């Protein structure tokens, strides 16, 4: 199936709930509303054989967070994206559809402070246990101040 045929099929199937972009061969970017995320993933898995999730990327857009789910099949790459408001960052888990998403969802929780509703195991993955609450390193307004190095005996 060529990209154009697949886009026509997706449009007929999902209607105007999805915006499709195709910037390069094989690469499809699908934009859905946060509420349609789980339904869209389920539909892609059941009807298009999309089972391999490569990763989940979070992007801080300033006023919103964008979350991109990178899927692929042997013929096409599906990048499913959704935007959630920055002041109430909540998104539903897709582990009910793709169980392998668990580590990536935990990573997004740690790094952006996005709350994944219904995640089966919401513990911290990358940040240490004594990391202060509410600090999320990949947010654009988060900066790291390196503590001044103290050399015993003073600088020589």
């Amino acid at each position, binding site marked *: 199936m060529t990209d154009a045929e697949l886009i026509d099929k997706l449009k007929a199937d999902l209607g105007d709930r999805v915006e499709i972009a195709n910037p*390069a061969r094989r*690469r499809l970017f699908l934009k859905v509303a946060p509420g349609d995320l789980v339904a869209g993933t389920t539909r892609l898995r059941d009807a298009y054989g999309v089972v391999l*999730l490569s990763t989940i*990327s*979070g992007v801080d857009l300033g006023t919103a967070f964008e979350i991109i789910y990178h899927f692929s099949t042997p*013929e096409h790459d599906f990048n499913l994206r959704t935007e959630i408001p920055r002041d109430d960052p909540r998104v539903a888990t897709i582990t009910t559809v*793709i169980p392998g998403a*668990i580590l990536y969802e935990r990573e997004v929780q740690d790094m952006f402070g996005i709350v994944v509703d219904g995640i089966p195991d919401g513990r911290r993955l990358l940040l240490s246990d004594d990391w202060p609450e509410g600090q999320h390193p990949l947010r654009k307004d988060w900066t790291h101040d390196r503590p001044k190095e103290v050399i015993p005996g003073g600088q020589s």
Partner: protein
Amino acid sequence: MKFQIPIGPQHPALKEPISLRMTVEGEVITDADIRLGYNHRGVEKVAEGKNYIQNIYLTERICGICSHSHSTCFVQGVEKLMELEPPKRGMYIRYLVSELERIHSHLLWLGVAGHEAGFDSLFMYVWRDREIVMDLLEMITGNRVHYAINTVGGVRRDLDEAQKAKILEGVATLRKRSEYYLDLGANEPSFVARIAGVGLLSLEQVISLCAVGPTARASGWDRDVRKEDPYAVYDELDFEVATADTCDVLGRVVVRIKEVLEAYKMIEQMMKNLPDGDIACKAPRKAKPGEVVSRYEAPRGENIHYIKANGTDKPERLKVRAPTLGNYPATVEMLKNGFIADIPLIFAAIDPCICCAERAVTLVSARTGEESVVSTAELRKLALARTKNAPVKRNAVWPL
């Protein structure tokens, strides 16, 4: 009676910090848990503050074994963002280094697998042969680990005829030896008995847990980015995706050796068809706003970089997913219902060791779960008493 055994994050047998927590019943592992983050360096955050050229060197330092795969994945994404057409000769040299790196990584793994299975002769043979490919990499790039050959728009060093001849000579030697290892790995009875049926991972588990690379291919999942999404030169090369259907460590050994044999084939084709011309084209400093998903088949599986540009000379966002992270959920499943003695074998790439993990002074009876705390002095007394009564001849004289 259930025990929890922590391994790591700091442990003499671990080469890298990771925390594994095994729940065991006797010798059988009933549950496993993985905790990451001990080596988190914040590369994605740092990348947002560096320009595209600096980021090549940063991404190269994500990994010490497949360093070239991260920098290549990043560079091929940036070239798409900048709409560059790198010259063919440069591409052939870049992916020649990729395949040589795959060989060195798989041979390293095979040696470690042999060592963990108690077959140290294999380990020594394989690591001796790995020096051939390490020397080739050093000859081509000037470095053994961080090759630093990639640049946006091509590569930084050219090949000459003498080097081509040396590469072909090295590959011919390696092929002969790898065929022997394939024969050995698949047929040597004691080695096969140790690795067959260990670390089972069914095809259904591979699909649901999104496993990648040789781990997935050993369970019959024939996905390879080089084949399904051929980047740069791979659509001009003739190769096959190596798979196995035994779903265990034996399958992973076979898949990796077969991949090495395919890599020799590809290197010979690349050397034969190496085009003339430039090795790099001039690249702009900035990239137009846009985004790209770059995929690359690293030795351990699919490597994916998502790069978003904002019009400056620095990326807005760089997301890196290394294949090992994708295989962790599958590793947990592989460890379940296995034996403690199989952990190092299943987890071979990370090399944990269980036998020296527990040195606790709380003794728990395995049958009743009764706990008794023993002081160090008492423990020492017990140990001395045990040595005294041991059936060793006192004051034995060494015959030589």
